[in-house]
């Protein structure tokens, strides 16, 4: 509790005590008025002050004004009627303040809790200075510095392990609870927690570009991208309060005047007081607090809960859009499959298994692909398994979407798909097996092909099925692979449609076609972020997988999945459903109860006590309900 809140607790306690004392002492006449006025000022002076300042500045209609007018009105009525019932005004003010206190306490507390959930900021890094281990600010550690991470400490910067082995808890980053084993040579991400052994790590990125800094920036910015419902509520609140004030004025004046002018009632016979009292009740009900506070809180809690699960959602607007996803488009490699290829077979020009020349074929392919970052290139190099002598390779040229050509030992070698072969004037042979084919031509003569198979992710099939359960009606796969491979994979996973043999640029056009064909419902695109940033940003919702792979992808995506588990896609949708569900419950609850109370108040059924209970009670319920959005582990 902060200072303001403690003072408020004191004021509330004092008010309750004094009211109780006054009730038993039961003073009369002017003394009674004076004593009750003192209590009233103790509980309400700040509200009256704010309302007064608001009027002076021309900012009339806010909740302070409403409460001030309602309670001053109630006081005046009691005075005019000589009833001596000043308790009502004090009670209304008291409950209002209790509600405000509760709200500021609960919201402040959950705000801090959620922020703490998301705060994975490391406090320090251990570095050697003059032979001694000292703690420094992670922001001051340069790239290439050796840092020491003790068990129990948070990895402060991204780097590569140079010494030691340990297991890392990456759950803060990925939501994955299984620890990850690391040893010398492995990459480690900042934000993970070192659990067992001491690690020496050579940093590879400055703090500002490290994983933890990027995650923090993303999460902190998410609250500033407001959802449509948040914007709607803030517009609504701006209009709603003045409207209710005028309605209250009308309620106070019109019915009595109607009676006088059309029913010929005498002035004295009309109970102005009744209608003024009803109008004041109106004002008490009309505070928009429950909505204004609970809706951003729901979104904030939902985003916080999702980030706990390794799902970074870039804003409330995205959370809202996720609930409307009906079509999910996958990029095959890296999302449904691991993007790691295995060499299944090697065939010569007449599609027979190679024995003698296989080693040579793989060497050529590996050498030509040695500097490419494409997953296929990496897999070929891994299958080759030897160190590549770069001095033997010259003139490397990458032909986008087709392959690579280079000179190895003076011979012109082309490695790539069928189109590249035809471009080089070579007729590739047809292969009998299904797989990704890498053709090799040497000095314009066909040398053979390598059959690669992509390794499927274990949960990919279940992920597609879960999406269907989550209300996705259509799944599409886009891939640069050959048709036969693509269709086999698609059938395996249960994907509805597949478009194969696409160049990176084609993916955007295909996505646009899919979006046009199904204008109802949103289209989400899931990619691993390697060369599909344009598609990620074109889709209604771009989902980047595999965490912090590429900066461009994080920039372009709306949702970043920290690990590459495809099950998280349907989880993200379910989290969004829960959050939006809570938002709607709160909107309906608040507007419903207030609407009912306004009607009852207008007919004189609900008095001011009921009104203030409705106001404060709804707000408390809405805030508690909003906090529920953070619990998404089992969604």
């Amino acid at each position, binding site marked *: 509790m902060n200072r303001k809140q403690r003072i408020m607790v004191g004021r509330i306690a004092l008010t309750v005590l004094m009211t109780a004392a006054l009730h038993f002492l039961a003073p009369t006449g002017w003394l009674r008025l004076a004593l009750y006025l003192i209590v009233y000022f103790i509980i309400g002076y700040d509200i009256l002050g704010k309302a007064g300042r608001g009027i002076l*500045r021309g900012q009339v209609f806010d909740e302070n004004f409403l409460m001030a007018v309602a309670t001053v009105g109630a006081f005046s009525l009691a005075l005019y009627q000589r009833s001596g019932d000043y308790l009502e005004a004090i009670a209304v003010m008291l409950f209002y303040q209790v509600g405000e206190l509760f709200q500021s306490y609960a919201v402040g507390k959950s705000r801090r809790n959620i922020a703490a959930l998301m705060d994975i900021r490391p406090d320090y890094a251990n570095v050697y200075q003059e032979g001694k281990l000292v703690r420094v600010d992670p922001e001051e550690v340069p790239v290439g510095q050796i840092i020491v991470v003790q068990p129990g400490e948070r990895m402060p910067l991204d780097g590569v392990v140079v010494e030691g082995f340990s297991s890392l808890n990456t759950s803060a980053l990925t939501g994955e609870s299984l620890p990850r084993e690391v040893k010398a040579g492995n990459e480690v991400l900042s934000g993970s927690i070192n659990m067992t052994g001491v690690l020496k790590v050579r940093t590879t990125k400055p703090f500002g570009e490290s994983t933890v800094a990027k995650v923090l920036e993303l999460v902190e*910015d998410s609250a500033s991208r407001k959802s449509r419902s948040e914007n709607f509520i*803030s517009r609504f609140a701006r209009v709603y309060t003045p409207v209710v004030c005028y309605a209250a004025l009308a309620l106070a004046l019109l019915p009595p005047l109607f009676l006088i002018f059309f029913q010929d009632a005498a002035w004295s016979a009309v109970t102005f007081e009744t209608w003024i009292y009803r109008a004041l009740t109106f004002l008490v009900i009309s505070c928009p607090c429950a909505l204004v506070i609970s809706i951003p809180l729901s979104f904030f809690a939902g985003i916080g809960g999702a980030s706990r699960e390794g799902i970074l959602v870039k804003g409330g607007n995205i959370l809202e859009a996720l609930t409307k996803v009906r079509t999910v488009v996958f990029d095959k490699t890296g999302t449904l499959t691991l993007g790691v290829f295995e060499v299944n077979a090697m065939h010569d020009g007449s599609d027979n298994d190679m024995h003698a020349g296989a080693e040579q074929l793989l060497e050529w392919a590996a050498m030509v692909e040695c500097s490419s970052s494409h997953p296929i290139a990496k897999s070929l190099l891994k299958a080759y398994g030897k160190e590549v002598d770069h001095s033997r390779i010259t003139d490397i040229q990458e032909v986008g979407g087709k392959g690579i050509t280079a000179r190895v030992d003076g011979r012109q070698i082309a490695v790539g798909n069928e189109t590249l072969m035809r471009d080089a004037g070579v007729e590739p042979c047809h292969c009998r097996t299904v797989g990704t084919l890498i053709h090799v031509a040497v000095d314009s003569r066909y040398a053979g092909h390598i059959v690669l198979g992509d390794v499927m992710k274990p949960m990919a099939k279940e992920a597609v099925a879960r999406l269907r359960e989550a209300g996705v009606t259509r799944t599409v796969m886009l891939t640069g692979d050959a048709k036969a491979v693509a269709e086999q994979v698609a059938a395996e996973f249960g994907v509805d449609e597949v478009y194969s043999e696409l160049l990176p640029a084609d993916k955007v056009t295909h996505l646009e076609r899919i979006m046009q064909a199904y204008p109802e419902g949103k289209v989400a695109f899931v990619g691993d972020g390697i060369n599909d940033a344009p598609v990620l940003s074109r889709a209604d919702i771009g989902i980047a997988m595999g965490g912090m792979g590429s900066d461009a992808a994080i920039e372009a995506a709306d949702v970043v999945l920290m690990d590459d588990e495809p099950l998280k896609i349907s989880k993200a949708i379910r989290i969004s459903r829960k959050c939006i569900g809570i938002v709607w419950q709160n909107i309906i609850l608040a507007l419903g109860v207030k609407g009912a109370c306004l009607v009852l108040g207008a007919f004189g059924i609900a008095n001011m006590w009921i009104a203030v209970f409705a106001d404060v009670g709804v707000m408390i319920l809405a805030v508690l309900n909003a906090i529920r959005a953070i619990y998404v582990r089992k969604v």
Partner: protein
Amino acid sequence: MEKSFKIEVDCANCANLVEHAVAKVAGVKSVSISFMTQKMKIAFEEGAEIGQVMKEVEKTAKKIEPDFEIL
């Protein structure tokens, strides 16, 4: 040019009202105030004098909500 400021604001509706008013300050292209993270993000117009604009922003915000603080 976009900048993020830490702020202190007590109530969600005040944050909304301040946001609405600050958006109209000359030199401010767009503004987003988050009550939840207690942050104000302002995108400034091209070539705006940021110090000058911020003075005006603070004045406007204080007028709406005297408890509003830019840290």
